[in-house]
């Protein structure tokens, strides 16, 4: 019945839609995913929180000039008041300015290290999945080896020697967290490579590089994007832990973990402004990333997506 030639039909009258319900325009998977995401209230909250902290950390210092450079012994441990909206630290630094500076480092390390991890992981996983066979087995055993290493221990050991700057910490954390993305992308590529469009590209003479770059990675992008958000959250928690243990960023960089560990000393003196605002910052940013990640996973998950 569908074999009727197009020429024998009258031209389609678009104003007269067929009975039996409205037919929406064909939408791309990405647009559907975005709509699905925007309908998730928690996800939008997560984006709003993250956006707030980006503005707070990077635009905030333009408008708010607090002192975090020279210690001021006449104004140590001041509670929040007119001159210092969030009080001062044990060295008389302005807590609000410190929070902004610490936020910069946290977000930078979070995104840089996630980028490093994702780039290494995606390429590694794509090659492993596409080539398969013996090389795949060897590459995946190497991932097993790395996954068995207690991550924090190694990062701490290396950070004691090479920590200190945003770049080095990002590289360090990224270099040890590409394992999960590598596994995810490999799994994705394994299911993709037997699909017809990949076979078609191969028949058309596409090289392996082109297959990976044009066909496999773009289709595995969903899992990668979801993973990026969790990587950012984990990296922020990691540098907070490093800072708290005293092996984080060095002056003039500030990190939230370090601020918190300074505040702990004064916990029993009741200097709450040195502890709870910075703790809340860490929790909020990490939670925002996790919320976005969860929502993205739901909206990109093909099984759940409405068609």
């Amino acid at each position, binding site marked *: 019945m569908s074999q009727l030639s197009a020429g024998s039909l009258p031209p389609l009258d678009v104003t007269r839609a067929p009975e039996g319900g409205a037919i929406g325009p064909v939408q791309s998977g990405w647009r559907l995913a975005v709509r699905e995401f925007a309908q998730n209230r928690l996800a939008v909250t997560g984006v709003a929180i993250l956006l707030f902290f980006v503005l707070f950390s990077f635009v905030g210092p333009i408008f708010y000039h607090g002192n975090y450079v020279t210690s001021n012994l006449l104004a140590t441990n001041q509670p929040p008041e007119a001159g210092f909206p969030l009080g001062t630290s044990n060295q008389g630094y302005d807590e609000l300015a410190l929070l902004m500076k610490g936020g910069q480092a946290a977000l930078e390390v979070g995104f840089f290290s996630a980028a490093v991890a994702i780039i290494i992981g995606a390429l590694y996983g794509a090659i492993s999945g596409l080539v398969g066979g013996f090389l795949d087995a060897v590459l995946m*055993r*190497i991932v*097993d*080896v*790395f*996954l*068995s*290493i*207690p*991550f*924090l*221990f*190694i990062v*701490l*050991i*290396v950070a*004691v*020697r*090479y920590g200190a700057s945003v770049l080095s910490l990002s590289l360090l954390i990224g270099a040890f967290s590409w394992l999960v993305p590598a596994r995810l992308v490999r799994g994705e590529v394994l299911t993709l490579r037997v699909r017809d469009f990949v076979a078609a590209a191969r028949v058309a003479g596409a090289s392996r590089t082109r297959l990976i770059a044009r066909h496999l990675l773009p289709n595995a992008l969903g899992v990668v994007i979801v993973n990026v958000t969790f990587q950012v*959250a984990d990296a922020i*928690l990691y540098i*907070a*832990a490093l800072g*708290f*243990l*005293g*092996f984080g960023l060095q002056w003039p960089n500030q990190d939230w*973990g370090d601020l*918190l*560990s300074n505040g*702990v000393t004064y*916990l*029993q003196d009741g200097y709450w402004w040195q*502890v709870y605002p910075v*703790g809340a910052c*860490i*929790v*909020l940013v*990490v*939670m925002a990333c*996790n*919320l976005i990640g969860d929502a993205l996973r739901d909206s990109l998950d093909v099984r759940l997506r409405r068609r």
Partner: protein
Amino acid sequence: MIGYILRRIGTSIVVLIGVSIFIFGLLHAIYPSPAIDVLGDRANSALVAAWNKQNGFDDPWFTQYLRYMGNLVRGNLGYSYKLNQGVSALLGEVWARSAWLSGVSLVLSVVIAIPLGVYQAIRRNTFGDYAATGLAFTVYAMPVFFLGLILIQLFALDLHWFSFEGSQSNSLLSIIVDWHAMTLPVVTLTLLTIASFSRYMRSTAMDVMAQDYIKVARAKGLPERLVLLRHLLRNACLPMVTLIGLSIPALLAGNLITETLFNYRGLGLLFYTALGNVDYNVLLAYTLIGAVLTIVGNLVADIALTVADPRIRLA
């Protein structure tokens, strides 16, 4: 099944060798020799070279690796130049304290997380579910030390219910009975673990609830209590086994920070002190122990799952 288990053990041994080579190589690259730490900052290069030669630190690193592994098999983990004591003896002194803290927390979190996850799955989208999810989500986003801090502020400084410091006793027995000092560290580590376990447990329980055998069990008139206990709980627990195996590195990291925060002298605090002192042999030994625990934990989890789940056993 025996074949699978043997193959699985074989892979684990290969991974174990790979891990030990990597960790040894990395630490060796960062800290080639403890000579300066032993001889002092002002030792001249001839002295350092002589000391390196005498103690075998000028050999190729792979020779050093083989020698280290040879000693390790005989129970000798090297010498801590900072603490003037054998590393094996140092670890022997404190391992039981860490095992107690981590063990109790792990058991508690499993015992709490499983029913919690099942409860959330049954009462899905009710207030109780939302409250538990929200709480788990918040704790999950919290650094361990901040969680511990809040507990210290609340229960030690404000309410005076518990001590703000872990037990300092040397005898394990007195640590076990000293709940006044041990409650906060145990609760910190437990909450942290529950937060990640209960999320998985909830989604697993929801998957199981949608299975046909649950419908069959209900259709044949089984009381709901038995449906939950015999069919849902048993099946939902299986992925937990794998999850526990996989979360060992996270547990060790949590243990490290909890022990540091509560000044509880265990393996984690020993490692932390060694970081500050650059105590090479202690760092190496504990990192290796962590890797071995992870590998053995995953192996045991896989084997336990094979034994427990006929679907995997027969496949």
